[in-house]
């Protein structure tokens, strides 16, 4: 991480007018924003409660209270049962997050390399582009069957699924950014004596970084939405496996709890990625 020095929090005194950190909210307006969001959340819970009361069918719409007590139940040991299916909620979530992490990292790494090659070698681009687009268009569940046949039902096919889901957006974003490297900057580097490798490392890749990062965020999102599919078979422990089991036994409150856990952790991870982006790529949108 060579690009981290100085980060986003550049001394305000040297930042020219209008040059505050991108996507930054003025500090004094922040509390108001949080207040608005909390209000919206409260309204949502109220509507939910209302729906639960009017339908009067907990298997159809469980009440917020029922979901809350499931949160307690799945997070503790009660009557000798540990959480849900022998694992606490955090453990289910943790296992799924680990799968997402491994899949995203592998998919990003391979996608990055593939994207750089696609962006620099024209004939490879011609050959691989339709393949990548083809895989991108497939729903993960469609090729999961094939992966099960090839790799069995344990961890391997799940990681393959997430890797394959995460790879195309990174590859496509990297390829287009690398291919579109600004000639002016490449020439400037060559005029300074940069070799071909120097140009790729010091100009093409840093220039592509903002787009690559957008690709990574997409990839993580895809891995996230694919993890439930990956855990439809032999998915326990795992949040997707938990939701699927709960669906079988009509434990709607556990299903909703699982959905909330997936959604909220997804939000947190995207926020973390955005913070990382602002820190790692302070030059985004400047040049």
């Amino acid at each position, binding site marked *: 991480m060579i690009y981290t020095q100085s980060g986003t929090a550049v001394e305000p005194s040297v930042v020219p007018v209008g040059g505050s950190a991108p996507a930054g909210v003025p500090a004094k307006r922040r509390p108001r924003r949080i207040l608005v969001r909390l209000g919206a959340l409260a309204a949502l819970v109220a509507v939910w409660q209302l729906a639960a009361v009017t339908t009067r069918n907990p298997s159809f719409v469980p009440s917020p209270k029922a979901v809350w007590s499931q949160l307690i139940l799945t997070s503790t040991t009660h009557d000798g049962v540990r959480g849900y299916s022998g694992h606490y909620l955090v453990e289910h979530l943790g296992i799924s997050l680990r799968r997402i992490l491994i899949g995203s990292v592998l998919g990003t790494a391979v996608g990055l390399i593939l994207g750089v090659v696609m962006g620099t070698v024209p004939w490879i681009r011609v050959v691989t582009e339709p393949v990548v687009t083809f895989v991108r268009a497939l729903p993960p569940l469609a090729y999961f069957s094939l992966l099960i046949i090839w790799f069995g039902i344990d961890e391997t096919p799940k990681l393959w699924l997430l890797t394959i889901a995460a790879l195309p957006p990174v590859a496509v974003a990297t390829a287009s950014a690398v291919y579109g490297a600004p000639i*002016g900057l490449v020439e400037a580097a060559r005029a*300074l004596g940069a070799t071909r490798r120097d140009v790729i490392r010091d100009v093409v890749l840093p220039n592509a970084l903002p787009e690559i990062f957008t690709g990574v965020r997409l990839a993580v999102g895809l891995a996230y939405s694919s993890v439930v599919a990956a855990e439809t078979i032999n998915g326990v422990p795992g949040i997707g496996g938990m939701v699927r089991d709960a669906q079988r036994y009509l434990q709607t409150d556990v299903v909703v709890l699982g959905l909330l856990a997936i959604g909220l952790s997804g939000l947190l991870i995207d926020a973390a990625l955005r913070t990382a982006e602002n820190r790692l790529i302070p*030059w985004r949108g400047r040049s």
Partner: protein
Amino acid sequence: MPSNPDVVLAAVDVHEVEHVYGTGRDAVTALGPISLSVRPGSFVVLVGASGCGKSTLLRLIAGFERPTSGAVRVGGREPVPGAGAGVVFQQPRLFPWKTVGGNVDLALRYAGVPKPERPGRIGELLGRVGLHDVAGRRTWQISGGQQQRVAIARALAGDDDLLLLDEPFAALDALTRERLQEDLRQVTGETGRTCVFVTHSVDEAVFLGSRVVVLTHRPGRIALDLDVDLPRSGVGPDRLRALPEYAALRTVIGQEVREAAGGR
């Protein structure tokens, strides 16, 4: 004198060069045939209206392009980008992912300067172009004039004998432009570098050049090749601009540029 270049090995030798863009019916001869020999230590300014091929000529000397016919030699060899010449473009072309100092550091690294020596050299190079305490800044946090100064510092990092400048001040405001002209005149005078400078400004040409070459409209050929006998040192910029010889040269070259452009 331009007509007798064989006394010393020419820093730049352009021999019977012609350059054509495109092929077949779309072919456009941008330049030549043109021959030009640049003596070491001289400051040659290529002047002409837009479309006269002056930037093409500079790109040929920088090695970014090969001439369609004829030969270009820099220091006796065929030019290769990054070997033998520092280049300053119209836009600063700084790397926004590097700090100001980082930009110069990269140039020093490419030039093969060992890491421990670089921090000192960065300060020295930035100081030479009149910049202090900006090494840690981001490239977008400094003004356009300062950015172009960094670009010059970066081009000087290679310690090449030749400096090529392609309308480097054209995008700057008048005041900043004059300041940079004065500083460039001084820096190149101090370092004894050979410069080839492209501009469309007659005033800039007379002020900077020890030799001014006016090019005709496409295809660019030499319309006028004039040595400028103005003092290169010991005279302030304002006094220099006030000299009667200065005004006379401006008139002569200005007329030639207008004629060469062919009423365009």
